[in-house]
């Protein structure tokens, strides 16, 4: 057979690694044919709705459901009393604590689930919610974690022994009834010693405010208990459907093979959809009780008030350096407000997530981190909002400490970073707080970024602007925000990473069809990342079949192999690696088939793009399509028919993407309005699978960073009322507020990942928040600003200017 197309054509035809393949998901989404959980309608389906607590802390003296039950169309009203015989009135959290499914004697935060109404339609359910009478006795409310640790008010009576002693929690000893854990990394004594003897020490306290991932689609589920076959099907907004199946089985007692969990299309997750929520449990129980399908979908206010906050870290830092600016030590203490239940979504052994990545991109010889988790009368959660576990907090902390140290040293913050970067030749690098960074070339990325924005020119312009402001010629100041971040993603090695005991591996199963197309299923689930497009690209390059002929399926636990799901930028580092490894198994068998067909020894053929060729005579070959067909229609001695493979991938290490961001901002000191003039983002995510998708992820992550830095907040008043529970008060940027971003990249592959990829979805958020914040703070630095807390909304920026006397 004569081969008329060139090798380049064949590579291009695969639409494999590195090409900006258009997304296969888009056909259905652009035509309104996505299938989200609220689109699911089943015959006889009922609607569930919650009665929620108006109080942040109160005893529930009585619940009267009579009037609600009397309303035509109401089928059931569930309270904790109904769930107790099933042992479902409380449920375990991902963090080793337990959480009320429905209020059991008291409520601990505003918006807490008190009763679950089930009715024929959503309007009747909502009417019935109003008819449930709950008698509350208000208790003293604590929204401040520092006060909580001093208070006599016990929030969680279930965690205090009858004799008043405080039993250990899931993470060791507790010092106070409202204390959850102390978690430490590094060496405190050695760190204190270094800091005590240092030339220069900078200290700072900062509050990383509470916020919320707020995906456009809220959380929800549809449970359908088929009593005839004993099978429960649960559709829902699950970032980790397989874990949900295991949890549902453990909670309900239904054997795991009789539970099918399906994540349909998910309208954004950003961490919000990792947790297990009372709504899921109640929809299951209601379906078991009524024998018909039950849908629960929260509204926006419920979403912001009850499912999954993020951050709420009070961080205290000390950083020491020589006079020349070489950092010698870092000390960090965090008071972590976890709300009413510890429902943080972290790997089990990491109650403060990977906060111990807080030495950042710098070669810091000695460091210490201590974190105290505290209960308050606020919603539970503590999810990683578009970041790996607590990495946004860690990177914000170190990138602010660097800026403050630069002020202390009277040194340019860009130069201070350069002096302290971990050097290229130091990788793999073991950081003072324990992580082994896989690869990096920070200085190259930094130099490229500073050159791209003409950093020196910007500083000169800023100096001129300061003078012009002082002369009264302008009311706008200029800020240059810098950040250099190292992420830690791809959780993670089973030896130290698990969720509820499930090791954090991931998986891929491939079946090649006789005609040379394929289906591959993975343990992850896309929420907009475009897995159906990009995983097919990884496979195309590995197995030599076009991405266009590979279907990717995820999210159905009856068909997909077990995996830990999609969050913490783990899909590409873990499931992507599983895909590559499964692809290599396919290739290994294909090699034997090719050798048989070509009548040569296995070792005499080699893989070339889309075929196996006889070494030294490339005109003799079998394409992967031909090999696939042969796998099904030829009896090959010593080989089973068929061509399929499965891989469960346990990553040997995390991956460490990094990047260099610069933001240039003009701020009107009289209105407090910041104007983003320029945002340059250089990302190094290792091997790039689809540049178009990568850019899209960066634009989106930066925009969520802009939101968090410049206004987005879940705020409470002293009574525990949520002040930002609608989109009127909770800031989501529109197209009008968002700038165009410049994206750039370097490529430093991960040495341990099969294709060298590191993950990218969360980098822009992790690096973006400190960059926006640093831009605001840098604008006021020449006027005496050292640190102000986020969010930098117009009012707070105005206050900063006012406090600095700039309105005088």
């Amino acid at each position, binding site marked *: 057979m004569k081969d008329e197309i060139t090798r380049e054509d064949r590579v291009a035809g695969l639409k494999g690694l590195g090409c900006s393949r*258009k*997304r296969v*998901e*888009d*056909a*259905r*989404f*652009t*035509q*309104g*044919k*996505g299938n*989200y959980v*609220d*689109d699911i*309608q089943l015959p006889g389906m009922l609607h569930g709705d919650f009665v929620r607590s108006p109080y942040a802390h109160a005893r529930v003296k009585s619940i009267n459901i009579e009037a609600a039950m009397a309303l*035509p*169309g109401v089928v059931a009203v569930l309270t904790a009393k109904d769930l107790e015989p099933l042992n479902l009135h409380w449920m375990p959290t991902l963090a080793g604590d337990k959480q009320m499914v429905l209020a059991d004697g008291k409520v601990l935060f505003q918006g807490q689930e008190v009763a679950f109404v089930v009715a024929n*339609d*959503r*309007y009747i359910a909502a009417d019935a919610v109003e008819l449930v009478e709950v008698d509350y006795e208000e208790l003293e409310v604590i929204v401040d974690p520092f006060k909580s640790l001093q208070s006599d008010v016990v929030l969680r009576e279930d965690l205090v022994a009858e004799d008043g002693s405080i039993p250990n929690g899931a993470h060791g000893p507790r010092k106070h009834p409202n204390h959850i854990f102390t978690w430490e990394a590094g060496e405190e004594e050695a760190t204190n010693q270094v800091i005590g003897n240092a030339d220069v020490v900078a200290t700072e306290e900062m509050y990383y405010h509470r916020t919320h991932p*707020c*995906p*456009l*689609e*809220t959380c929800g589920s549809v449970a359908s208990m088929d009593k005839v076959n004993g099978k429960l099907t649960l559709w829902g907004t699950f970032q980790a459907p397989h874990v949900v199946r295991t949890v549902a089985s453990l909670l309900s007692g239904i054997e795991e093979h009789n539970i099918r969990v399906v994540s349909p*299309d*998910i*309208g*954004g997750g*950003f961490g919000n959809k990792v947790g297990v929520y009372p709504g899921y449990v109640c929809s299951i129980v209601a379906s078991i009780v009524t024998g018909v399908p039950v849908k629960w*979908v929260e*509204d*926006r206010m419920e979403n912001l008030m009850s499912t999954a906050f993020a951050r709420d870290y009070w961080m205290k830092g000390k950083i020491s350096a020589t006079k020349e600016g070489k950092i010698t030590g870092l000390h960090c203490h965090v008071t972590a407000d976890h709300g009413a239940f510890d429902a943080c979504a972290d790997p089990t052994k990491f109650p403060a997530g990977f906060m111990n990545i807080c030495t950042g991109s710098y070669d810091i010889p000695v460091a210490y981190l201590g974190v105290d988790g505290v209960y308050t009368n606020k919603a539970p959660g503590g999810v990683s909002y578009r970041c790996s576990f607590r990495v946004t907090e860690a990177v914000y902390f170190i990138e602010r400490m660097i800026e403050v140290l630069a002020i202390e040293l009277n040194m340019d913050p860009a130069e201070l970073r350069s002096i302290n970067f971990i050097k290229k030749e130091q990788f793999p690098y073991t950081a003072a707080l324990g992580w082994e960074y896989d690869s990096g070339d920070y200085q190259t990325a930094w130099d490229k970024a500073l050159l791209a924005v003409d950093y020196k020119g910007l500083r000169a312009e800023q100096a001129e602007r300061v003078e012009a402001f002082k002369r009264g010629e302008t009311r706008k100041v200029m800020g240059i925000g810098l950040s250099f971040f190292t992420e830690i993603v791809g959780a993670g090695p089973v030896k130290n990473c698990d969720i509820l005991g499930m090791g954090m591996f991931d998986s891929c199963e491939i079946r090649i069809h006789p005609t040379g197309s394929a289906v591959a299923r993975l343990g992850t689930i896309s*929420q*907009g*990342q*475009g897995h159906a497009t990009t995983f097919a690209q990884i496979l195309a390059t590995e197995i030599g079949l076009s991405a266009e002929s590979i279907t990717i399926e995820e999210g159905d636990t009856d068909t997909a192999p077990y995996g830990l799901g999609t969050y913490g930028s783990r899909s590409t580092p873990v499931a992507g690696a599983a895909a590559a490894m499964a692809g290599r198994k396919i290739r290994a068998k294909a090699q034997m088939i090719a050798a048989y067909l070509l009548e040569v020894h296995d070792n005499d053929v080699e893989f070339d793009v889309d075929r196996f060729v006889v070494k030294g005579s490339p005109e003799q070959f079998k394409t992967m399509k031909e090999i696939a067909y042969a796998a099904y229609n030829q009896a090959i001695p010593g080989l089973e028919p068929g061509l399929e493979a499965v891989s469960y991938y346990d990553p040997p290490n995390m991956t460490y993407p990094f990047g260099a961001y610069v933001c240039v901002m003009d701020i009107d000191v009289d209105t407090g309005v910041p104007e983003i003039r320029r945002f340059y983002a250089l990302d190094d995510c290792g091997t790039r699978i689809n540049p*178009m*998708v990568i*850019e*899209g992820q960066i*634009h*989106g*992550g*930066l*925009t*969520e960073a802009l939101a968090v830095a410049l206004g987005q907040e879940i705020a409470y008043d002293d009574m525990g009322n949520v002040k930002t529970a*609608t*989109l*009127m008060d909770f800031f*989501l940027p*529109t*197209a*009008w507020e*968002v700038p*165009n*971003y410049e994206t750039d990249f370097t490529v430093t592959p991960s040495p341990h990942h099969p294709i060298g990829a590191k993950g990218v979805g969360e980098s822009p958020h992790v690096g973006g928040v400190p960059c926006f914040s640093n831009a605001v703070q840098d604008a006021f630095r020449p006027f005496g600003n050292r640190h102000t807390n986020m969010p930098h909304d117009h009012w707070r920026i105005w206050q900063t200017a006012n406090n600095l006397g700039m309105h005088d």
Partner: protein
Amino acid sequence: MSNKMHVNLTVNGEDHEFLAEPRELLIYALREKLNITGPHVGCETSHCGACTVTMNGKSVKSCTVFVAQANGAEVTTIEGIGNPDALHILQESFKEHHGLQCGYCTPGMITRAVKLLEENSNPTEEDVRFGIAGNICRCTGYQNIVKSILSAASEMNAAKEAAQ
């Protein structure tokens, strides 16, 4: 319930007649009575625009229109914009320029963009950004949405010129 009213709606060129409580929101009538699930619910307070449809020639947030107010109206949803054999230029353009990720805002966003380009066939970037400011996207950061709409506008204008 006896407090239901007859509602007549023309949706995507098709006439529908059904019973509904006057308080029922247009978005739920579309989604749950007529099985038109392209428009989505994101906030129920008019902020996010996931439910955007065209009603009597104007972009509206169908989560804050009572079905009673919509009685007799002509409504276009994403389902009425292009079809699998002939996508609207904007649908093509969103695919081409990666103007969507999770897809939840996309039906409302494209429905709004169609109307926007009817209102202003030659918009600047600023016009586009202002024109879609009622539609929130959490995934894309808008950059590629703006690009998609501007590119569709010039393509549509070029097609118009060629036809003349």
